[in-house]
């Protein structure tokens, strides 16, 4: 049978013929990986993906829908209305990761809150150790909440020029501090919603930044978390809520999580992800940080 008569698309047929495969018999003995020279094997990539570290959000339900937590090597965008808990989630992630790097563009990072969450984290860890009966001396190294804060690289960013400069500088910073595992930008949006009359320029600058961040995430196996605000969009005669920075920005992140209110409960929804199915889960913001939603609310509803 000739390749030219196979029921495949014209472009594939063209590629096969130009690569020298004219008949089916010449094709049948070749393995798929040989056929795709230089490309990565999907099987290997799957293994790589499975071994990838994920960063817990401290909320089991949220981790569940995220497939174990925030993915390293990927850019994740998290957005929601003011007061929904974006900053809280940012602080929680910063505490959970050994060495985080936090950009604060809005001034909402409060040390006492970080300390509170860090204290809860240390308590939980010692509780967990006791639970596992890990009584070896080596494991008894007591972690202090202040140690966690000590490890946070914190930048307060006061203008978009600073923000762009800092993202450009990250490459150098990361090669000096290879132990940094997560970069949190709270928020990517704030400085880009002022003083930009030329929206085309803003889009170019932002997509440039997004590409840099993606490259950083790949090169240094980092998780990059961008917090975004929401805005209203006027389409078809009605207003709708969307994440800020426009339509073209929505292509810039690998994963997109939207936080929203449902009644009196906070929910997270996976809006975009190449590997996760869209799902939502409730979470709550407690004085100890981000946790599972308290089930007594559900119990009340059932009665």
């Amino acid at each position, binding site marked *: 049978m000739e390749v030219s008569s196979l029921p495949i698309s014209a472009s594939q047929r063209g590629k096969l013929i130009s690569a020298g495969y004219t008949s089916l018999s010449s094709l049948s003995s070749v393995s798929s990986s040989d056929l795709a020279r230089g490309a990565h094997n999907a099987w290997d990539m799957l293994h790589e993906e499975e071994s990838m570290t994920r960063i817990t959000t401290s909320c089991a339900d949220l981790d569940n829908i995220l497939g174990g937590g925030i993915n390293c090597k990927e850019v994740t965008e998290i957005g929601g*209305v*003011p*007061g929904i808990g974006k*900053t*809280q989630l940012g602080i929680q992630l910063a505490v959970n990761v050994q060495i985080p*790097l936090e950009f604060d563009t*809005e*001034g*909402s*990072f*409060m*040390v*006492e*809150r*970080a*300390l509170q969450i860090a204290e809860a984290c240390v308590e939980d860890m010692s509780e967990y150790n006791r639970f596992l009966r890990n009584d070896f001396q080596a494991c008894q190294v007591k972690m202090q909440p*202040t140690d966690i*804060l*000590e490890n*946070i*690289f*914190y*930048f*307060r960013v*006061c*203008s978009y020029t*600073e923000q762009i*400069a*800092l993202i450009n*500088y990250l490459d150098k910073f990361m090669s000096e501090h290879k132990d940094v595992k997560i970069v949190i930008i709270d928020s990517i*949006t*704030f*400085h880009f*919603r*002022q*003083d*930009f009359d030329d929206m085309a320029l803003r889009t170019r600058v932002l997509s440039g930044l997004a590409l840099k961040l993606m490259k950083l995430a790949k090169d240094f196996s980092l998780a990059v978390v961008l917090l975004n*605000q*929401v*805005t*209203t969009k*006027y389409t078809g005669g009605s*207003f709708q*809520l969307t994440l800020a920075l426009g339509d073209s920005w929505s292509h810039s992140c690998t994963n997109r999580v939207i936080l929203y*209110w449902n009644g*009196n409960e906070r929910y997270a929804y996976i809006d975009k992800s190449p590997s996760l199915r869209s799902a939502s889960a409730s979470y709550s913001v407690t*004085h100890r940080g981000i946790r599972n939603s308290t089930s007594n609310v559900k119990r009340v509803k059932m009665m």
Partner: protein
Amino acid sequence: MRPQNLLHRPLTTQKCTLGCPILDRCVGGGIPCNSITELVAESASGKTQFCLQLSLYAQLPTSHGGLSASSLYLHTEFPFPLSRLRQLSATFRNSNSALLANNGHNPCDHIFVQSVHSVDQLLDEMPKIESFIKNSKSRLPIRLIVIDSIAALFRSDFENTPGDLKKRSSLFFKISGKLKAMAVGFGLAVVVTNQVVDLIEPNEGINGLRIGNLGCFYSSGRRVCPALGLAWANCVNSRLFLLRNEEFVSEENGTVNGGGEDFVCRRARRRLCVVFAPHLPDSSCEFEITREGVFGVER
């Protein structure tokens, strides 16, 4: 650029006391420095009272919850409540005479007042304010900026067209960006007040959008939401709501709502609520306004 070490600064953000321990407890010690706190309320709820009291108590030494600092009061609603300030200042001086540096200390000397009539003027004032703070030779440096109210500036100059609204929200971010930069640069506490608008639509729609801890706010029996919309809500770090509800107390049978004949026994019940704040849980506290100032009530 160098990252900051979080342990090289105090482990709690410095706060400016509201002048009452009960209120302070509700907001985690007072109004935080380095960020913007917004007070939202309908008229006659006590926004200005809070602001005046705050600018007096900022003068207390840091050991007593103040900032040992002067304050800058930008007012956009006229006239400036000078007689009330003098009344509060007299009480403040009498009750805190031991803490103030010398006996000749007149609290009003450390409150700088500036009137602002338009958004453009506010933007023009920003660099002047910055150089004023930088070059201030006063014994008490400026550590508190009050803008009372931000809503009055924006509610008159702009029309409800997409073009104007876009221009408006870009100005929000510009003003907020400048204020935040100053707040970080000089360790300022920034307080802005905002008005409310009535909520006519049901829960759906943009104004019914839930922001923060409270699903909906009822003030004076009306359903309200903060003015200036979602864009402005993104510009502030913390938002506090002052709710006010009138209550008619008749002499025989306690509380009757909406009675209305007996004006002598009418009183307002006021409540301070945390709508959102990066460092505070959902909490609220009742307060009352007396001749001496604003005080929390424990029930």
